[in-house]
């Protein structure tokens, strides 16, 4: 398993140990995305072990550090600071994580005589390697992605009838206050309970332009909802009337 960059200096000044061949990742031997003085070091990759492996640019071996730092800041208090070395370390860890999981997933796909590493292989590998608590959120994420990819854009808009069907979700009886507190009504079974850390706040799935469509198509379902609360059936338009369609969801 020949990896490039074995003999190249490490990026950190306080780590003079160059050829840590125990390292299993490509990238941390030469990591100089922010150091212009080492720019020649990256082109020096061309002279390093690049016989049978195409040259990989340094900046291609890791996630962009800005993205990494943005995600880090999501879980840190606003006053917290991060050293450059810490940012780069996390950046390297992410690449190592990807390689680690991919290796296991690839073994599984090969054992099962498949040529393609699938998303299920990835999730399985995470479970096997100790990241079980990632499995459920990732399965939900994958399911939602597949749904959004499978449904045509226009079909998604036409699906407001089953989405507006509050029969099973809303208990019968006096449910006035409950109806009023249903802000994101689109996908009630996809309530994110886990820390996905979306940057969007408020109802992410509720685009204001969709409200108008629901208002147009909702009246027919509202009248047919004998099982749900009477207040909802009579006031289906007024219920959304309080919601300002022109307001931008932040």
């Amino acid at each position, binding site marked *: 398993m020949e990896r490039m960059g074995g003999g190249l200096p490490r990026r950190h000044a306080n780590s003079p140990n160059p050829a840590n061949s125990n390292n299993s990742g490509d990238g941390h031997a030469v990591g100089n995305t922010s150091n212009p003085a080492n720019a020649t070091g990256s082109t020096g990759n061309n002279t390093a072990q690049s016989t049978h492996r195409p040259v990989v640019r340094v900046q291609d071996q890791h996630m962009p550090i800005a993205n990494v730092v943005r*995600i*880090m800041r999501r879980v840190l208090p606003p006053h917290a600071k991060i050293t450059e070395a*810490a940012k780069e370390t996390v950046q390297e860890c*992410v690449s190592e994580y990807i390689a680690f999981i991919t290796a296991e997933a690839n073994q599984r796909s090969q054992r099962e005589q498949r040529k393609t*590493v699938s998303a299920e292989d990835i999730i399985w590998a995470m479970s096997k390697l100790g990241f079980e608590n990632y499995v459920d959120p990732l399965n939900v994420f994958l399911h939602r992605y597949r749904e959004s990819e499978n449904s045509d854009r226009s079909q998604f808009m036409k699906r407001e009838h089953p989405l507006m069907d509050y029969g099973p979700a809303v208990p019968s009886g006096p449910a006035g206050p409950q109806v009023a507190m249903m802000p994101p009504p689109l996908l009630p079974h996809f309530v994110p309970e886990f820390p996905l850390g979306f940057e969007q706040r408020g109802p*992410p799935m509720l685009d204001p332009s969709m409200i108008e469509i629901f208002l147009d198509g909702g009246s027919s379902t509202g009248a047919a909802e004998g099982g749900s609360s009477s207040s909802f059936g009579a006031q289906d338009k007024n219920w959304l009337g309080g919601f300002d369609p022109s307001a931008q969801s932040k």
Partner: protein
Amino acid sequence: MRQPGRYSGLTMCGGISGRTGPHSLPLARIKKIMKNSGEDVKMISGEAPIVFSKACEMFIEELTRRSWMTTLEGKRRTVHKDDVASAVVATGIFDFLVSLVSGSCCSEDITLVEIETLKS
């Protein structure tokens, strides 16, 4: 804050259709790292980098949280590389990262902590 588009706002935060929203990780880069993992990875399904983008977010968040705990123990407000290293060493599932972060620490100390961690 960038507003989600009419359709991208309906999907998962705009990063699924291939565009990288303000929070997503670049799928092509993920795919490149997967291919370079050196394990003779032949073909990768289109969904795999997408799953990884979310998984990496969760990974970064977990690693950062644990590092921050070490920072707080030291009564500091700046996360240092050693805090990240301590978080890696203290977490069993991050064992694959120990050699990566041990470059700046004394390898002997790391070995001792590894043995203690394995014993417990």
